């Protein structure tokens, strides 16, 4: 029973989050460009995206005559279900995780790859050259960027020796059963807080985070890696033929995907549901602020800040060219992440022992 309840709450949360994220993105982009953004619908234009989604649901659902009808319908469903399934192994608090499987992060990597299948289906089924070009680009990009992302994640899980996301979270705070060292020299198992987070457990893990973050931008098709959508060249890329509800589902999936990769980053690098407040002498702040509800608050705050960072980056940087994109991935990020994996091994063997 609780299982159904939580999954429905999660679905509702993601839908509301996606609408608010679209609103926030429009507002942030407006402010960055000295515009005012949505102001008319509701206070501060807050209801704008709700109005947009209602308009979208009322629209005629057009399937192109020459489209592959079955694939055309299946693609948005596949993309959205894949992203939604990803939330199953994310721990929301010390006591709550939908499915505490011991291949958690591996499962998530697989989920992220399924999305690319949906994008290919959408592009192919539309029978439109722009859509097809967009999806081909998307595949080249996502498959390439999965490698540095996976290697950066590998550098982290080599230290924790587990694939279970709940255990990875445990090992970054005061609930840890192992000893935690701040940069390898200061034991912080009882102090916790921000000092116990992954990025402060070894000096190279911050670089691992940056690599993962860049790769995750590419996996969500966000600027500067939005060449699959590239409005100025491909109209809208793989979803150019979609209308109405199906377009809404693809749109929702894109924002849910942003949230999912930010959740993964928060869990792997920023302590997941762990509090940023440390236990200092007699102020046991970390003890106070660790718990089921606090955990949900912290992890959402962390993930949403990362989403904000993605939006900020989108409205700052221009788009990469295809060859630059591949150069960055294969010649810079992959060698660097291999070095990080090596460094993780050395750190685990010689410093932590």
């Amino acid at each position, binding site marked *: 029973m609780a299982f159904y309840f939580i999954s429905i709450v999660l679905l509702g949360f993601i839908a509301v989050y996606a609408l608010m994220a679209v609103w926030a993105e429009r507002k942030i982009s407006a402010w*960055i*460009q000295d*515009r005012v953004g949505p102001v008319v619908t509701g206070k501060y234009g807050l209801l704008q995206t709700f109005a947009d989604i209602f308009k979208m649901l009322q629209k005629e659902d057009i399937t192109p005559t020459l489209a592959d009808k079955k694939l055309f319908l299946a693609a948005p469903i596949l993309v959205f279900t894949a992203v939604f399934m990803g939330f199953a192994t994310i721990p929301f608090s010390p006591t709550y995780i939908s499915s505490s499987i011991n291949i958690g992060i591996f499962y998530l990597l697989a989920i992220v790859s399924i999305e690319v299948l949906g994008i290919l289906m959408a592009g192919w089924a539309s029978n439109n050259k722009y859509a097809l070009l967009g999806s081909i680009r998307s595949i080249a990009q996502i498959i390439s960027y999965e490698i540095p992302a996976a290697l950066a994640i590998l550098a982290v899980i080599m230290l924790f020796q587990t694939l279970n996301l709940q255990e990875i979270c445990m090992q970054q705070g005061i609930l840890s059963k192992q000893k935690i060292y701040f940069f390898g020299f200061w034991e912080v198992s009882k102090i916790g807080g921000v000092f116990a987070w992954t990025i402060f457990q070894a000096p190279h893990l911050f670089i691992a985070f940056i690599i993962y973050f860049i790769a995750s931008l590419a996996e969500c098709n966000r600027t500067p890696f939005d060449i699959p959508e590239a409005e100025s060249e491909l109209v809208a890329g793989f979803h150019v033929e979609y209308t109405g509800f199906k377009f809404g589902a693809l749109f929702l999936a894109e924002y849910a995907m942003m949230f999912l990769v930010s959740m993964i980053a928060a869990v792997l690098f920023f302590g997941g549901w762990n509090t940023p407040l440390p236990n200092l002498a007699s102020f046991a702040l970390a003890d106070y602020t660790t718990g089921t509800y606090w955990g949900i608050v912290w992890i959402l705050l962390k993930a949403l800040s990362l989403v904000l960072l993605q939006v*900020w980056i989108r409205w700052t940087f221009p788009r990469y060219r295809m060859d630059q994109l591949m150069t960055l991935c294969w010649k810079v990020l992959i060698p660097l992440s291999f070095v990080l994996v090596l460094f993780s091994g050395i750190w685990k063997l010689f410093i932590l022992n």
Partner: protein
Amino acid sequence: MRKKKNTYLLIKGLFKGLAITLKHFLKPKNRVDKGIQSEDYFSQRTGSSTLRYPADQIPVPEVGRYQLDIEMDDCIVCDLCAKICPVDCIDIEAIKATEDIGKTSDGTTKRLHAAKFSIDMGKCMFCGLCTVVCPTECLVMTSEYDRSFTNPQELNYVFAEMPEAEAAQKRELAAVAEQAKKEAKAAALANSAINKEGQI
């Protein structure tokens, strides 16, 4: 060595870009709405670049080429505008009047009824040719530009439409008059032929 420097410059550039966008994001001064009416709207360095249409509109020139409008009382139904229109969006049906039906404001006599006069603004390409050829200058372009409709039929502006019964009656009268004229002409011709014969 050069490569190292380039990488450094690249990273520096990235952060500089982020700093610039952050600066704009955090400055509410940039979002103050000055409005088009303020004197220095086009020279200002700060302030919002949003124009809150329709509450705030850029003034358009009075001679702008936007919507077509016609003063039907001044139209002599000469059909020149329909003939020159490159996209054939003006539809005119003229019926000859049996006598003069009035004068336009510039003194031209009107001899034709407009049974139908419509301009399809959905087809119009705003070339303005029709307004140039109009002999009585009754067809003009106004400065109104923001017209939109939910039904495409409404884009066809109907300026004159005679009820079918009335049009039929007028047509009949015109036909009768035409017939009478023809007969008169034939009679005159026959007369002149006889005269000519007499001369020979």
